[in-house]
């Protein structure tokens, strides 16, 4: 039941972002952004020393994780963060006052930067490994799709 709620929320977020993008599309030019949690960069996690850093030390610096999973040797902790950028220009919008039709010449881009930071712990909750997923980071707001 709660898992369904969680999935529903994820879908709601996607629908909300889509609604914002679609609504902003009625204007000549629009720039939108969706961020989920704060971005974590390598410098933020440089303090983690495999074999030494405890789970609680990481929580004190990064906060509580989004997910914890059990593994045969310990646990995996995941921190999710997202940064999506959308930009759109409708050059046809500028011609509308002077033409009987409503021409569209739309150029748009969307860059979905999805990242996960993972830390693997041993059975004593001491960090064994850490890594970022290798998804591309969000593109800048440049509505040039070519």
């Amino acid at each position, binding site marked *: 039941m*709660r*898992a369904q*709620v*969680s999935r529903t*929320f994820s879908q*709601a*977020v996607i629908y*909300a*972002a889509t609604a*914002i993008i679609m*609504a*902003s599309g009625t*204007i*000549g*030019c*629009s*720039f*939108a*952004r*969706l*961020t*989920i*949690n*704060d971005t974590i960069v390598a410098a933020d996690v440089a303090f983690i020393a495999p074999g030494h850093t405890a789970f*609680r030390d990481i*929580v004190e610096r990064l*906060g*509580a*994780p*989004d997910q*914890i*999973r*059990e593994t045969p040797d*310990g*646990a995996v902790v995941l921190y999710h963060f997202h940064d999506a*950028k959308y930009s759109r220009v409708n050059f046809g*919008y500028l011609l509308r006052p002077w033409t009987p039709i409503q021409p569209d010449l739309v150029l748009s881009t969307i860059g979905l930067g999805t990242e996960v930071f993972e830390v693997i712990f041993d*059975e004593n909750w001491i960090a064994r490994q850490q890594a970022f997923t290798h998804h591309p980071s969000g593109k800048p*707001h440049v509505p040039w799709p070519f």
Partner: protein
Amino acid sequence: MRRLAHSAIAVALLFLMGCSFSRGTLGDEFNADQIATIKKGETSKADVLTVLGAPDRVLPMNGQELFQYYRYDAKAGSLLLILVNFARLNIKSDDLYIWFNREGIVQDVIFGKRTEKLKFQFWPFGE
């Protein structure tokens, strides 16, 4: 200088069609007093269920049990001008984890509150 600022605001308002602020939440806000009642080595699983209700996730963790409670908060802002729109949607979560030992007594509690730093923004550029 003040006249220039007033002129800039007047011009900006001329192009302003509207603005919007929206908010969405999933789950009730965590009550710090309720969390404070959960004591390591004392509070039982039944007590936790009474205070906080059923968890959002129950995770097996090396023979122990882990309860996860979460809450999401989303704030969206839009600035609608005649030719240009700016919009931004920010989402953050609060997470509470409670570990139980094999006897069903609380072994550890971890709470992270990210939503207190959540802001309404419409400017999509920069950080």
